[in-house]
């Protein structure tokens, strides 16, 4: 692994992204800092997923740029980008009934030469990822036979096996039961604690408030607020962006919000 890659920011500068001729993200400025878990929040259609894909290098900038450290992401060769940035798409599907171990091993592809077979180091990385997400016991099961919670952890293990410095995930906890939601968030917190950068597109304001260091709030393609949960989830923002009013409280020093009605 290249040294120093762990301490660079992934940054969008005046980033505009278009889908089918329509600007879905407009002039976004944000920086993801190493060691932090960030949440991209906003109503449906706000541009969160597109912004995440832009940060992952999967959507070319229409204007502005994405910087990895001081280099434009677009200048990085695909394989090198893939070693740095792990991306977990929304509602990821697996098209064949591959066994869990094989799926997780796919995460090692960016580390292999074109005809190079996986070696001992790759096998260790797969083992570590299986252990970190607690799915060692499922190693030989077909991924298509797993429950939603199990599959979400296996797909996370797939990304972790590549040991990327940046982990970007699109609604990874949507559709999971509360236990698995909390477990997933703890897993990505552990990953960030090792100097990695994590950004998640989320809908659950409380999981974001509880587990994320920094919240980015999007509305109609623009970033409208950035910071901790208390600033970003204040009554004004919730009313303007989500059109809701909420109850506020605090537990163990962390704020929580309960959507209570439409504003």
């Amino acid at each position, binding site marked *: 692994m290249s040294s120093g890659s762990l301490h660079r920011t992934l940054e969008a500068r005046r980033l505009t992204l278009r889908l089918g001729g329509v600007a879905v993200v407009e002039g976004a400025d944000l920086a993801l800092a190493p060691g932090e878990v960030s949440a991209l929040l906003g109503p449906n259609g706000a541009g969160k997923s597109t912004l995440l894909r832009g940060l992952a290098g999967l959507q070319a900038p229409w204007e502005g740029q994405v910087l990895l450290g001081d280099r434009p992401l677009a200048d990085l060769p695909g394989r090198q980008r893939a070693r740095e940035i792990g991306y977990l*798409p929304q509602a990821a599907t697996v098209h064949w009934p591959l066994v869990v171990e094989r799926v997780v091993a796919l995460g090692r592809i960016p580390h292999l030469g074109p005809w190079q077979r996986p070696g001992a180091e790759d096998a260790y990385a797969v083992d570590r990822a299986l252990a970190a997400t607690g799915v060692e016991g499922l190693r030989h099961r077909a991924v298509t036979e797993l429950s939603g919670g199990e599959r979400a952890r296996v797909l996370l293990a797939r990304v972790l096996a590549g040991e990327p410095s940046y982990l970007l995930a699109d609604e990874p906890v949507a559709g999971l039961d509360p236990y698995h939601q909390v477990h997933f968030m703890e897993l990505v917190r552990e990953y960030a604690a090792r100097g990695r950068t994590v950004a998640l597109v989320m809908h659950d304001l409380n999981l974001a408030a509880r587990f994320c260091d920094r919240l980015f709030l999007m509305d109609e393609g623009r970033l409208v607020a950035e910071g901790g949960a208390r600033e970003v989830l204040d009554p004004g923002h919730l009313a303007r962006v989500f059109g809701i009013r909420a109850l506020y409280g605090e537990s163990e020093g962390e704020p929580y919000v309960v959507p209570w009605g439409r504003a």
Partner: protein
Amino acid sequence: MPGERARAWLLTGLGLVLLALAGASLGIGYVAIPLHRIPGALLGPPGSAEALILQELRLPRTLLGMAVGGTLGIAGAGLQGLLRNPLAEPGVLGISNSAALGAVLTLYTGVAAVAPLALPASAMAGALLALLVLYGLAGREANVQTLILAGVAISSLAGALISVALNLAPSPHATTEILFWLLGSLADRGMDHVAWGLPLMGLGTLLLLSTGRALDALSMGEETARSLGFHLGSLRFRVIVGATLGVGAGVAVSGSIGFVGLVVPHILRPLVGYQPARLLPASALGGAILLLLADLGLRLAADRVDLKLGVVTALVGAPFFLHLVLKTRRMTV
């Protein structure tokens, strides 16, 4: 890993079966040649009758059977991986039908009778033209749906034009000739067929083999494959061009041979743990085995009934496919 060892055994096993079948294909026929005399007759001077039969007839037939079957198998596996659809086969993108149309045109016009190489050359041209039209219709960044739709359109058009050629054929003799050619055969192919067919099929096979890891990544969807550093346009290009070169050359040599590209990857997929990359080489060996078997079968039956190769593969393939459908249904219910 235990999976690695199982994979090595599978490929070794398939390789040994193929070798045995190749030996049988050289030895069995109108004149039986004992195994121990084959190497001498193959490598020796072309004086004896046995040497003549082996060098002029059975060697090209065996080599082409292995190459065409192998190409159809790996092309089917590659296309199924690319389209993430177990029903995909070389016919689905219109390659087979377009190559067949190219060949039929030379039979229809009578050019094939005057210039023997015109038929394979025209078949190859048909396949490449289909490739250009496919890219023209679907574009370079096409999604899977667009690709399949464009392929089906091309395939139907080529099929319709073949019917027109049959309909308007100048004589009953020409109609019969076209029909028999369409049924597929490896009989009476010479070393000149091997000389130009093998490199094209080899190139196609290499292109397809190079896509293994990208197809593995694609089993997690297009976004994941891209995030793992693969360029989808390049992957698509290698699979489609590889299949076009291989299958185009295959059809040019042997006529239309169905079901190999569909059935072989199906049979082998569970044996390689459903992994697209491992399916590629296994399907190449499996396709070669299936086609040699079919060709041997029809040669053994030749004194009683004159069957064409494409007929045999369809006769074997279709019931087997039905069996697979029933098995899959039982598994999902």
